[in-house]
Each structure stands twice: as structure tokens, then as C-alpha cells.
């Protein structure tokens, strides 16, 4: 009716935080928590480390809010903090690319190691993702999962657009390959 109930923009919320309304930051956290959390979880591969990185990033963003030049682009700025934070997180049970040895016993073992007779597809995806080199995984997630434009990703990561396109292409190829391998175990 009379009152406009559209949610406040990022710029508006940042403005409020800067004038002392700390609570307004909570709205920004809510707004970005799940989307950025999804990136962190897939990038880092560990839920707890991802949540810690996410929490850390929100706090850092708050503390350096004065340095956010364009409040309307708070989201991109926060992304940059998170992407960097995910890079520095310590590897935890990192699954690196390896060839593996099979012998009959080991295959038997693998079959019994998991309740289902074959690996869950989602487990295979998680493992395949974890096997990608970090900068491939980062580019792939930002482009295809987080839906950022190449120009935006270039800003966040400091890499050039064509380098990023190559990374995404390689990531796609490798995921395809790893998932094929997983099917044949």
C-alpha cells in the first residue's frame, strides 16, 4: 500500500553499518551466507573449515568495511575476501591426483569398504572436485556454480580472462575423466 517493503540494498545496509547500526551487518551476513558458503564448502572440501573460512571472511569484511570503495558492490568485495581466505586455508585430508594400484584383494576391499556395492555418485563428484588443481577448481566453481562473469572472476582472482577460460575448460575435462574412472572401479 503506502509503505515500500522492498529489502534494503547492499549499499543501503553498508551505509547504515558505517553510521553505527551494527545490526544492519547481520542482514548482509544472512544475505550472503548460503551462497558464499556453498562456494567455500565446494572449494575447501570440508564443511567445518569452510564455515570457519566463511565466518572469518565476514568478520574481516566488517573490520575493513571502511576500505570498501563501492558499497553497491559489497558482494563482489566480500567474494574477494572469501576467495583469498579459501586459498590460504590449510589442506585438510586433501585428496590429490594420484594413480592407484589395484590388486584383486584391494578391489574386493574397496567393494566392502563402502556399504553400497559401488560408490555414491555424489561421493565421486566430491572426490573428483577435490582432485582438481586449486586454481582450476576455483575458476570452475566461480563460473559454473556461482554464476559469475569472467570479468568478475578476473577481478576477484587477478587472473586474465583467457587464462580463466582455459582453467575452466581444463576443469571440465578433468572432472569428466575422473568420473569416468570412478565408474570403472
Amino acid at each position, binding site marked *: 500500500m503506502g509503505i515500500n517493503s522492498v529489502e534494503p540494498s547492499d549499499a543501503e545496509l553498508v551505509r547504515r553499518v*558505517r553510521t553505527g547500526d551494527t545490526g544492519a551487518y*547481520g542482514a548482509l*551476513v544472512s544475505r550472503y551466507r548460503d551462497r558464499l558458503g556453498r562456494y567455500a564448502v565446494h572449494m575447501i572440501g570440508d564443511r567445518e573449515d569452510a564455515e570457519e573460512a566463511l565466518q572469518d571472511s565476514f568478520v574481516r569484511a566488517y573490520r575493513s568495511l571502511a576500505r570498501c570503495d563501492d558499497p553497491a558492490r559489497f558482494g563482489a568485495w566480500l567474494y574477494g575476501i572469501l576467495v583469498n581466505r579459501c586459498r590460504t586455508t590449510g589442506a585438510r585430508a586433501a585428496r590429490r591426483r594420484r594413480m592407484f594400484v589395484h590388486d584383486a584383494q584391494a578391489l574386493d576391499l574397496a567393494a566392502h569398504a563402502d556399504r553400497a556395492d559401488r560408490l555414491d555418485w555424489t561421493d565421486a563428484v566430491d572426490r*573428483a572436485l577435490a582432485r582438481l588443481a586449486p586454481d582450476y577448481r576455483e575458476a570452475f566453481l566461480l563460473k559454473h556454480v556461482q554464476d559469475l562473469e569472467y570479468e568478475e572472476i578476473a577481478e576477484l582472482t587477478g587472473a586474465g580472462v583467457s587464462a580463466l577460460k582455459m582453467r575452466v575448460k581444463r576443469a571440465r575435462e578433468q572432472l569428466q575423466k575422473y568420473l569416468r574412472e570412478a565408474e570403472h572401479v
Partner: protein
Amino acid sequence: MFEREDETVERVIQHLRLPVAIDAGLDARVMREIAQVPRPGRRMKPLWPLLAAAAVLATVLVVRPWNWNAANAADTLQFVLVAPQAASVALVGDFNDWDPARSPMQTAHGVWATVVRLAPGRYRYAFLVNGVEWRADPSAPAAKDDEFGTPSSVVTVGGRGS
């Protein structure tokens, strides 16, 4: 059956795009941490970053002491064995590749001891006396699975995962 390349990758993308549940308590934790930080937006004075850091640090310590300890990720433990007749005692376990040369123990009046830093985890260990005799730690829980036929003990260090 082989899917077309694009199809496999598209399935992966659709799966990864599904919402991921982030712990709902995260919002509160963020707000609690920033409550200690003086409000942003003002011109920062040189002393400010130090104060802000100290405030956040204090918050973390007060609000989550257990996690802070865990974030340091290691505990220092002393292992002790009373063996007055022994000429040498070594501590061996999952934390030192079961290598007797890594943690030789020192003795005073028949009490052998050494100190080890351990990251969070559960560790099997034992004492090797005179290079030949295996002894469990009488003051620690026993490791039930002694599949090599000699006694072992267990120590568990808490904290966040591995």
C-alpha cells in the same frame, strides 16, 4: 554406457549448484565477534588495528576457549613410566612412526619421562624397554586391538579434527 561429455559435466554442475546448508549459528557467531570491534566507517587511527585485533582475540578466547585451543591444534603431553631396572626406555607410537630413536625417554630415580606435542587425534603407543620388552602405559586406557601380540595404550587429544 558413456554419456556425452557435456552431459556428465552438466550433471556435476547441477549437483554442485544445490543449496548447501550452512550452520545457522554462524550468523550469531559473526555478530558476536564484530560486537567487540569498534564501528567501521570512521577514519582509522594508527593504534586502531591493534586494538581491534586485541578485541577480536579476546572475544575468541572468552567466547570459545575450547576452539581456540583446538585452533592451535596441538597439546603437549608428558609420558611417564616407572622402570627402575631399565637401562633404556623409548616411547613409540602413531605420532612418531613407531621409531624408537625418535622419543627416547629421560630418567630420574627410576622414573622415565618425555614430553611430546600432539595434534588432535587418537594415538596408539607403547614403551619399549631395553630395546626388547614392550610395555603398555599402566595409567592410560589400553588399546584393545593388539593384533601384533604386544600391549599398547591409547591417548586421545581433543580439538577440531585432524
